[in-house]
């Protein structure tokens, strides 16, 4: 159900700084809303996002209810070798999603 959109350039020059954009579909229910009958809607958010390149962590984020639905993240990294970016989202109610993208560096 959950789906991720990843934007990583397929090719880059050695030492180039590239931008990585990610979007994960998720409701990011804040836990501060309530139903018509007055019951609080329980919190259901993504709490952490990690990006690794060839196994080592390059970016990590702690998310809070103040992050919009379908969390979008954009950040930068310097590429020195070809390899694989791995993305991981972890959240409430056992939410865990992974995605990956490869880059070839010349």
């Amino acid at each position, binding site marked *: 159900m959950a789906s991720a959109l990843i934007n990583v350039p397929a090719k880059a020059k050695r030492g180039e700084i590239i931008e990585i954009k990610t979007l994960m579909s998720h409701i990011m229910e804040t836990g*501060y809303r309530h139903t018509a009958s007055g019951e609080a809607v329980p919190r259901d958010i993504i709490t952490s996002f990690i990006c690794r390149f060839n196994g080592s962590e390059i970016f990590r984020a702690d998310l809070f209810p103040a*992050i919009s639905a379908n969390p979008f993240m954009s950040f*930068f990294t310097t590429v020195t070798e070809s390899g694989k970016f791995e993305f991981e989202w972890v959240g409430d109610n056992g939410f865990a999603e992974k995605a990956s993208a490869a880059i070839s560096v010349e």
Partner: protein
Amino acid sequence: MHDQSTRRDFIALAGSAAVFAVTLRPAEATPASMAAAIRSVVGGEPVKTGKVKLDVPPLVENGNTVPMTVSVASPMAPEDHVKSIHVFNEKNPQPNMGNFYLGPQAGRAQVSTRIRLADSQKVVAIAKLSDGSFWSASVDVVVTLAACTDEVV
């Protein structure tokens, strides 16, 4: 005469103490919960204004999704880089918005995401540098349609 000189000394001392107190205080008064959240990140370290650029539109129509970019002027070298960026707000139910952890391999200290704003308020970004110093920037945002935290679903 002796009496007068001590009074003058006292006034000079009081004046310098006042200057000291002003420099220690943050640029503007912030609600207690945000101040507490910031304190839990920076500890007792002073937070200086500068180096950080916080891009949030000053006038927002829909508080449910507000684009935000934080960038920090840093060479991102192993000996001088940004370790983390923390974003806070005054009037959402929770003062924390996001924590972002980077390293020297990032090349550029810039992070973008989309945030919710429950009201017109001030947003503060604080960057932690590798030398342990903290730098901040703040933006006042006017929100016309708030992210409805008490909305009925």
